[in-house]
């Protein structure tokens, strides 16, 4: 049964606008509806992935032929990242059941919209379409970031709005330049007819697209908004940011680098940007006192590693980068959910006031699995991505950069170990037990991390299609 990929986008959009009607009928059922939609969407994504593995699917919407019409080009990697985003969204939606601040309707609508935007960005084959979904994601993200309506929420959202809108405008400039020169917006088409562009304007177009999506992908000079936004946003939202909007952003960046502007002499600059992101992310995370800020900076560090992996450009390192996207989405979502519970249980978000919070095994074990996976310890999924990126780096001979990266990751291990020390210290302080909506997502994420860690074969098979992706394919 041929499932149209467009359903993946249409379903959340449809339900997003259906929710107000359902809320008229009864408030309580809202969260179960959202969970149902997201679950169904995840299953759909899985089916799309199975088919995409056989051959990239082209789905023309409303009959317009390329290069004019909107076309969805779903490659195996795009489908894989879509599946990751949807699974993460579903599990986080379980955790959103704990959000109690009043206008829940708005919260659920925005979460469906951000899911739709992120999935769209990943699946679309058309540049303008990519920009549209980027806008949808960003706007939904602005709304969700300021959902708490407190000073920190507004401040974070404000910074995100400023940086996000500058980023989107850069993307618009880039698209305009490309459209002016090539008269087409279909990515495959652009990739084939790149030669006709005048080299200088090609650079300007690439840089503006690169910077535009860089904001979403938390690259070094552009990620100043990340800590405040993640800190101000409600806990499930920061988990969503880490696993959904960041992933779609980095995927778009990968697409920009490889499919649209597949030229290699610029890549070493991307690697430098990646290593700078890692360096600043890890180092500033070390001096943080607040747990969500620490996780935000650590997520910047992980994203920097993925950018570095893309920048290195060999098949191995790009496979590593994609695997790292998958592991970072799972791991970081788990940590943010755990952080959310800890802030709620300890009453404060300062780490040194949370002595002994991890002693309850329900929270302790998933927390440990998450941290070990983020650190890159073997039987968990965090290891394979990091290892492949490093080996790719060695293949290209980037010794110094790899050494700097290893030093930065020692700093990362240092601050995570410090956090574990605080979390597992003996203390007579009693913490309220987590309810089902908290430890259920933690356990699901932990199972995914361990399962695919011990037996990563299916993910490896998906990633074997990277070679096609690199050559400008889907």
């Amino acid at each position, binding site marked *: 049964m041929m499932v149209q990929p467009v359903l993946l986008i249409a379903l959340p959009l449809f339900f997003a606008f259906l929710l107000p009607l359902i809320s008229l009928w009864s408030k309580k059922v809202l969260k179960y509806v959202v969970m149902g939609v997201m679950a169904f969407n995840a299953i759909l994504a899985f089916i799309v992935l199975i088919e995409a593995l056989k051959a990239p699917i082209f789905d023309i919407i409303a009959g317009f032929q390329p290069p004019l019409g909107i076309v969805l080009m779903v490659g195996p990697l795009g489908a894989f990242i879509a599946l990751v985003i949807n699974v993460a969204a579903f599990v986080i939606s379980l955790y959103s059941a704990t959000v109690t601040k009043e206008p829940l309707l708005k919260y659920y609508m925005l979460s469906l919209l951000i899911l739709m935007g992120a999935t769209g960005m990943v699946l679309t084959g058309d540049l303008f379409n990519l920009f549209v979904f980027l806008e949808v994601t960003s706007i939904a993200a602005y709304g969700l970031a300021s959902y708490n309506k407190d000073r920190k929420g507004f401040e974070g959202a*404000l*910074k995100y709005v*400023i*940086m996000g809108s*500058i*980023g989107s405008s*850069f993307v618009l400039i880039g698209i305009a330049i490309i459209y002016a020169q090539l008269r087409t917006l279909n990515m495959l088409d652009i990739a084939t007819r790149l030669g006709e562009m005048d080299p*200088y304007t090609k*650079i*300007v177009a*690439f*840089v*503006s697209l*690169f*910077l535009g999506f860089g*904001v979403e992908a938390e690259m070094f*000079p*552009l990620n*100043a*908004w990340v*800590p*405040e936004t993640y800190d101000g946003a409600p806990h499930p939202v920061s988990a969503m940011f880490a696993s959904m909007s960041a992933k779609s952003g980095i995927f778009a960046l990968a697409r920009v680098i490889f499919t649209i502007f597949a030229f290699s*002499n*610029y890549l070493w*600059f991307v690697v430098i940007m990646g290593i700078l992101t890692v360096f*600043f992310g890890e*180092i*500033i995370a*070390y*001096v943080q006192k607040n747990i969500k800020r620490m996780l935000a900076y650590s997520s910047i560090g992980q994203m920097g590693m993925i950018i570095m992996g893309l920048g290195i450009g060999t098949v191995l390192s790009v496979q590593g980068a994609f695997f790292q996207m998958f592991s970072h989405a799972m791991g970081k979502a788990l940590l943010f959910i755990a952080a959310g519970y800890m802030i709620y249980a300890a009453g404060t978000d300062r780490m040194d006031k949370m002595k002994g919070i991890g002693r309850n095994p329900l929270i302790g074990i998933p927390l*440990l699995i998450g941290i070990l996976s983020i650190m890159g*310890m*073997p*039987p968990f999924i965090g*290891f*394979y991505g990091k*290892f492949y990126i*490093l*080996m790719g780096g*060695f*293949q290209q001979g980037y*010794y110094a950069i*790899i*050494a700097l990266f*290893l030093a930065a*990751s*020692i700093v990362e*291990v*240092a601050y995570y*170990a*410090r956090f*574990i*020390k605080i979390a*597992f*210290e003996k203390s007579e302080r009693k913490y309220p037990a987590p309810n089902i909506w908290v430890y259920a997502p933690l356990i699901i994420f932990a199972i995914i991390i361990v399962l695919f860690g*011990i037996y*990563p*074969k*299916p993910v*490896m098979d998906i990633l074997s299609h990277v070679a096609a992706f690199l050559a400008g394919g889907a």
Partner: protein
Amino acid sequence: MEILGIFGIFVLVPLIGSVIAYLFRKYAVAVAAIFAAVPSIALYPFYDTNVSRIINIGVKLNLTLDPTTWFFMLMLDTLAFSALLFAIPYIKKAQGNFATLILVALAGANGVLMARDFLSLYIFWEMMSWATYLLILRKSGEYARRYLLFGVLSAYFIIMGIGIVYYYTGSFLYSATTGIPMSGWFWILLFLVLGFGVKMAVVPLHVWAPYAYCAEQPFVAFLSGGLSKLGTFGILMAMYSIAGISILQGFGTFRGVSLFGYPFALLGAITAFIGTVLAIFQDDLRKLLAYSSIGQLGYVMVGLGLGTSLALGGAIFHAFNHAFFKSLLFLGAGAVIYRTGKYKISEMGGLGYKMPFTFLFVLFAIFALAGIPITSGFISKWMLYEAAIAKKFVFIAPLMLIASVGAFLYCFRILYGVFLGQLSEEHKDVKEAPAPMLAAMFILMLPLVIFSIVPGWILGWISKILVSMGLKPLEYSTFAYYSPIGNANMLIMWIAFMLLFMVSMIIFMMKKARVVDQLDNYLAGEAPTQVQLHAAHNFYKPLKDTWAPVLKYSINRAYEKFSQFFVEGFKEIRKMYTENPQDYAAYMGIAFLIFVLVGWWLL
């Protein structure tokens, strides 16, 4: 278990066991002991075989079981089994995760030993190190954090080594290392040996050991006895199996010893000396054993560095002895801590009268550590000395000899402080250690006795390893062993010692002796009141005063100052994020400009 073969028995069984053991809440440790017994028993049919197998779990892991792996695995699995057997009464709370983590560490260790490609080596190495981290975490977060920092440092050294191999050969296999230039080999070997050296606690990188060895004693016995041998195995494989003698000699030789190995031998000798000197002045029993372990591993490092067949054989044999007598010492210490709950040597005293079996086991371990000929500890030290003296190394040999004399000092400090001297009032009713503990200690004592009488067996195993590494086999017969400048026969020595012991026994048995209570003692006529007359407090004070100017400096504090310097730097960098959106917008503008300029400049 033919489906997965050696991978199944030695890696999967402990892993599955760790999950099952977690389910048995209170009896987890006992169940774990059973699971740990499986690999050690399953080892015997694999003697002198060369089974290999490739497992594909998404990444290819090729594992083989050859004499070298068999030898180290024999050591490791028996240690794990006896540590778990010892732990049954010792661990009172949270048995579940103790059993799980020990089995995960064992699986990781077996994996490292069987790995024949760098990827699987790294996977199992890291598995073993984070399992150890969590086991230390059970005791104290700060110690665990220091251990993990050094564990990760060692892992990243190894990654650098693997990376360079991958850069030159494009594959992870050990055997596929042809066509690497000498400069490449230098960096690969340097990083690998440093990486494995961290786990063997070589002096500049030893700072984690005294902290890590303060965790629960049964685990520490397995950690210091077994897991530090992974470092030895790693260096052995890196220098002699992956690189091979020809490449080592390629670096130029200094009287037959490769110029790459000699500095490590010197470093090992310095480690032996510093480890022993620091061990003499420790009052905490666990810290003393930790520093003594660093010292003994220094000897192994010397043997590995020198690289002649006698030195390498000595190193492997000393690693074997060290595994058994050090974990026996830690188990003995664990039994004492279990019964008295005290860590400081000066607070215990006279426990030998109340815990005779523990005392005998620890005494035998001390004899092995000091290298007394009636134990096999002597043979390995003898081989290392002969190797160093035969090659006329004038800096390594004295350091090693003085370190072994220093070993006597801290050995006696343990014996006198803990087991002899005055039995204090509160330890009046201390009972002997429970049965499983004594059984575990007995298992560890057996090889030290057997191989001291019949060294031929184990020297045969070691010769097989040396031959597989391309070196000459050792010269040995069942009871004696030879070196270019001397020999020693154990059987004759044992017989002579027995006969002379009987002679002194005859003289001794002439008169019966009346047993007297410990307080009926000559104290210049005064009645010995209950004041603590135990002379173990600040035992080597005169020596400490003479060494005071040297002891001032501590590598540990140097590390702390060094890391403090970096943290200050991080605080400066943090100021870059100025919480002010206008700056962020400015950053984007500047970034755009730089990117475009770089792009154009690149064209």
